[in-house]
């Protein structure tokens, strides 16, 4: 198996799907000549030409809406947001148009497209460039929301997202683009709506996704040294959630800690917690704990930024709380 970077894996997914289906095109800021702000689309303009790879003006609402319109008549746009922090400029097009078109038209106009880009904080980018949007965008019926934590998952999920006949919002991370991982040479797909156990354990389940998944893995290793066996679950698709996998794991470990790089109020973690309390109530030995971003805009200062986001220490503390270990 080849070991490649996250950005290469995502780029491969786009290239493979553009080769497979002539209706797929890529549009976004700097995706063409510049080879992508984060080099995900490196080489695609050379490979597919300007008819398939479009450098958009700084008009997120405009080019996102252009994608929705093109999808209404059968094209399969991939709309890249340089970051989801800019993507919220296009919320009207995503929420009012992409999500609702099929429904309002009584099933006539589906929207086969992908909106993708990095989500959450990078490093010292300050308040406006460091937000995680999954809690907002998973709250809208008509949208699929997927996220990935490894190059392998990223490639397989993005290919499925491009082939899906619904609007899929795909969340990546600036901090992970350079991360390396094994990716098979042969073609594979990872189905939307299916989570993955990243590490098996028996004492507690940790649920995390995107780059917070790696914090959870570090915490699981630290806990292991203290004799605590943590299972780490990556839902991979946040809307719809793979509830079966989550319930199965919690029924096995009886304790759950959710880690998310998002504010805790009304978040995806809150939703998972609600579902687990309802469906696994008799299997729980402790209330579900969550480790989230502190409820402040992201500070610029390095130490403050670090403290704002979930840390290994905070995860370990939460795990000890659900295990009643002082």
């Amino acid at each position: 198996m080849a070991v490649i970077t996250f950005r290469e894996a995502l780029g491969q997914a786009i290239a493979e799907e553009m080769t497979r289906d002539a209706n797929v095109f890529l549009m976004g800021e700097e995706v063409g000549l510049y080879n992508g702000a984060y080099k995900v689309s490196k080489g695609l303009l050379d490979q597919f030409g300007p008819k398939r790879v479009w450098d958009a003006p700084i008009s997120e609402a405009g080019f996102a809406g252009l994608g929705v319109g093109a999808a209404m008549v059968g094209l399969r746009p991939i709309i890249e947001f340089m970051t989801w922090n800019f993507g919220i400029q296009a919320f009207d097009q995503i929420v009012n148009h992409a999500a609702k078109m099929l429904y309002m038209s009584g099933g006539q106009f589906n929207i086969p497209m992908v909106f993708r880009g990095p989500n959450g904080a990078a490093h010292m980018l300050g308040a406006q460039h460091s937000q995680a949007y999954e809690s907002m965008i998973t709250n809208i019926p008509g949208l699929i929301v997927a996220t990935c934590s490894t190059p392998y998952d990223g490639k397989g999920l993005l290919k499925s997202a491009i082939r899906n006949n619904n609007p899929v919002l795909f969340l990546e991370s600036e901090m992970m683009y350079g991360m390396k991982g094994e990716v098979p040479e042969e073609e594979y797909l990872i189905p939307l709506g299916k989570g993955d156990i990243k590490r098996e354990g028996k004492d507690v389940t940790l649920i995390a996704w995107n780059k917070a998944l790696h914090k959870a893995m570090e915490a699981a290793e630290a806990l292991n040294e203290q004799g605590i066996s943590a299972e780490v679950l990556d839902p991979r698709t946040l809307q719809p959630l793979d509830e079966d996998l989550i319930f199965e794991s919690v029924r096995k470990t009886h304790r759950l800690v959710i880690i998310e790089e998002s504010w805790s109020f009304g978040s995806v973690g809150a939703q998972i917690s609600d579902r687990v309390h309802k469906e696994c109530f008799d299997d729980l030995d402790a209330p579900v704990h969550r480790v989230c971003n502190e409820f402040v805009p992201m500070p610029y200062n390095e130490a403050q930024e670090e403290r704002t986001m979930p840390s290994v220490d905070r995860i370990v503390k939460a795990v000890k709380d659900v295990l009643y270990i002082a």
Partner: protein
Amino acid sequence: MAEVIEMPKLSDTMEEGGIASWLKKEGDFIEEGEAFVEIETDKATMEYNSPVEGYLLKILVPAGKTSPLNKPICIVGEKGEKVDLGAVGGGAKPVSEKVEAKASEKTPEKPVGKTEAKASEKPAVEKKDVSSADNERLRASPLAKKIAEDKKIDLRSIEGSGPGGRVVMRDLEGAEASRKESPAADVKKEAPRAAASSAGDYEDLPVNMMRKTIAKRLLAAKNDAPHFYLTRSVNMKKLSEWREQLNKGADKDTKISVNDLIVLAVSRALIRHPEVNSSWQGETIRRYKAAHVAVAVAIPDGLITPVVRNAHAIGLREIAKQTKDLIGRTKAGKISPDEYAGGTFSISNLGMMGIENFTAIINPPQAAILAVGATIKTPWVNEAGELEVQERMTMTMSCDHRVIDGAVGATFLQTLVGFLEDPLAILT
């Protein structure tokens, strides 16, 4: 052909409309599309254009009045046309009257007698069946509750290690099961089967809390604990003589009863035979190191078994004093729940009522109960083979076979009989 014009909906949130003014009066001609009335909606006052053409024959809602949507406001038709107001469906009535009429029409439909009938169907006493101990909120994780249910562990007997004393999974690891009371539902199922011949020859009495508890606990005991019975007859001669000596010069308050002597003997015998001083915990058998002897006391509406704690470790006079106090307060209803909980063995004595011999139901989670009969003079063949009259007492011990086997129980009784027939042996 006259047409009835109804109050139009002129806004998305409008529920009723007011007639701001009539732009036409009765008898005027209205063109289709011509504004003929001004209607006040919840948002604005708007002209309403006629959907039909004709003469305004009758105004049904005058200016300044309101009408709900779709209720007639006027009639338009040909000149001189007769209007049948009855056919309009009473729309000419002011709104308020209509509402009242509706309300009064509805009243008789209400089944007046029904609520009373329903109330009488209910049992006279319907209180939630919870003992006072249950009222204290039990803190346990949902998982711990499930495990306790499966293993029949009494969560109240477990000390929780979680926040606020929450019982969590690890607290139950290695915990022993105690017999749990069978669910109240079982009792309820049995209850209605009371045979009834004809109405009027019986009376259904409300069941109070204690009665319910007795029913529940003793049924559970009989169902869960496999009972077997061992009976011995005891020569009470020496015990009676000893008692007489002890009571010489004693006043009423300090007298020693036969029962006190039996408690003493039993407590000492239990320490020698801890296998009887035990209880069934499901997965394990709990063996007690102290003898807490419960004494059944009849009270007017039931039965209570106050416990003489650490009876094995206190003297006879102390046993007598405590027992007297417990029985006195039990009968006076002044005993607290913790004073009748935690016994490891029970004694039920109906001797003073003339009962010679009987068997009792074990008081869970204890493993045995001793039923004590009356001391009576009876012809008896003594050890020398001669017939003589002796003062004898018959006692029967009910044993939980899960804990006590026949020989174990018999050995215990042998010790106990030895103590009763030769009180000095107690000291050995």
